[in-house]
C-alpha cells in the first residue's frame, strides 16, 4: 500500500507532471534515489499509468464544445454496444462515457463553430442508432480541470 512519501510524490507530480526526478525529490524532501525508486515501483504496480499531453482544441480552431447526454432505447438489447461503436467513428467525438442514472451515455463533441456543430449534429449524431432522447449542454468555461485525485 502507499505511504506518506508515495502520496507526497503523487501530489506534486499531479500538480506538475513535467518535473524532473531531482526537482520532484527536492519538493518532497527526499533523495533523488528514493524518489526514483518509488516512482518505478508505482509504475510497475500500475498506479502510475503514464503521462499524456493535454490538447487545447480551442487553439486548434475548435471553438465549440458540447456535452450531449443521450438516453438510449433500452428495449434493444445491443443498444449500448451499437451506439458506442458508431459514435467512435465520428472524429469530432472526443469522449464517450456510459452511466448508471438518468443519462445512459454522454458524448463530448467539438466543432469549429456553431454551423459546423449543427452539421455534425444533424449528419453524424442524430443518425446514430437507438437514440431515445438527447439533451445538449454547451460548454461556456472550464473552472477547474486538473482532474487530480485527492491522494
Amino acid at each position, binding site marked *: 500500500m*502507499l505511504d506518506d512519501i508515495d502520496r507526497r510524490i*503523487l501530489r506534486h*507530480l*499531479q500538480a506538475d*507532471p*513535467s518535473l524532473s526526478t531531482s526537482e520532484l525529490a527536492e519538493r518532497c524532501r527526499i533523495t533523488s534515489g528514493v524518489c526514483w525508486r518509488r516512482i518505478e515501483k508505482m509504475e510497475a504496480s*500500475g498506479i*502510475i*499509468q*503514464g*503521462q*499524456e*499531453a*493535454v*490538447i*487545447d*482544441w*480551442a*487553439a*486548434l480552431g*475548435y*471553438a465549440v464544445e458540447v*456535452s450531449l447526454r443521450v438516453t438510449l432505447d433500452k428495449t434493444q438489447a445491443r443498444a449500448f454496444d451499437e451506439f458506442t461503436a458508431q459514435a*467512435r467513428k465520428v*472524429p*469530432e*467525438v*472526443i*469522449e*464517450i*462515457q*456510459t*452511466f448508471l*442514472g*438518468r*443519462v445512459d451515455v*454522454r458524448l463530448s463533441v*467539438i466543432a*469549429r*463553430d456553431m*454551423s*459546423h456543430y449543427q*452539421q*455534425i449534429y444533424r449528419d453524424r449524431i442524430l443518425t446514430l442508432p437507438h437514440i431515445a432522447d438527447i*439533451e*445538449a*449542454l*454547451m*460548454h*461556456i*468555461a*472550464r*473552472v*477547474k*480541470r*486538473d*482532474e487530480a*485525485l*485527492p*491522494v
Partner: protein
Amino acid sequence: MIELDDIDRKLLQALAQDATQSAGALGRRFGLSQPASWRRIKRLQDSGAIKGRRLRLNAEALGFGVTVFLGVKLARKGQVSLEDFERAVSAIPEVQTVEHVLGLYDYRLRVVARDLADFERVLRRRIMTLPGAGDVEANVLLSEERLPGPIGVSSAPGPETPDGGSSAQR
C-alpha cells in the same frame, strides 16, 4: 489559431498517448531529424495546442472506486454570485473538474469518491451546502473512453479544411 500538417497531427496524437516520449524517438518514428522533431514539438507547445501534461493514475488502485458526474443548478431566488460558487466548489478536493455549461444545468462536476457511501458524504456535506446550490442530478460513471479527436484521422474529409475565418479563436 495554429495550422497543422500531417506530421504535426501524428506528433500531437503520439504525445497525447504518451507525453514522455523524446523528440529523438518521435522523430525516428515519423522520419524526422531530432532537431526538426524538437522544433515541431516546441511549436505545438508555444502555440498552446499542447497546454500541458496530465498524469494518468489508476484511480481504482488508489482506492477511488466511484466517479460521479453531477449536474448542478443554481438556486435562482437569492442573488447567487457565480464567483463565490465557483471558488467554493473548486476548493473541494474530491471535485476533479468544474465546467460552466449552458442548458439544463449551470455546472457540471466530476467527483471521485472511495465508494457510494463516501460519495454520499461528499454530496451532503460539501456539495449541497455550497452557496447557491439548487437542484442536483447524479450519474454514476460506468465506463469512459477518450478518443484522439479530429487529429486522429489524417484522411478525414470535409471539416478538416479550415473554412476561411468563420472559426475565430486566437
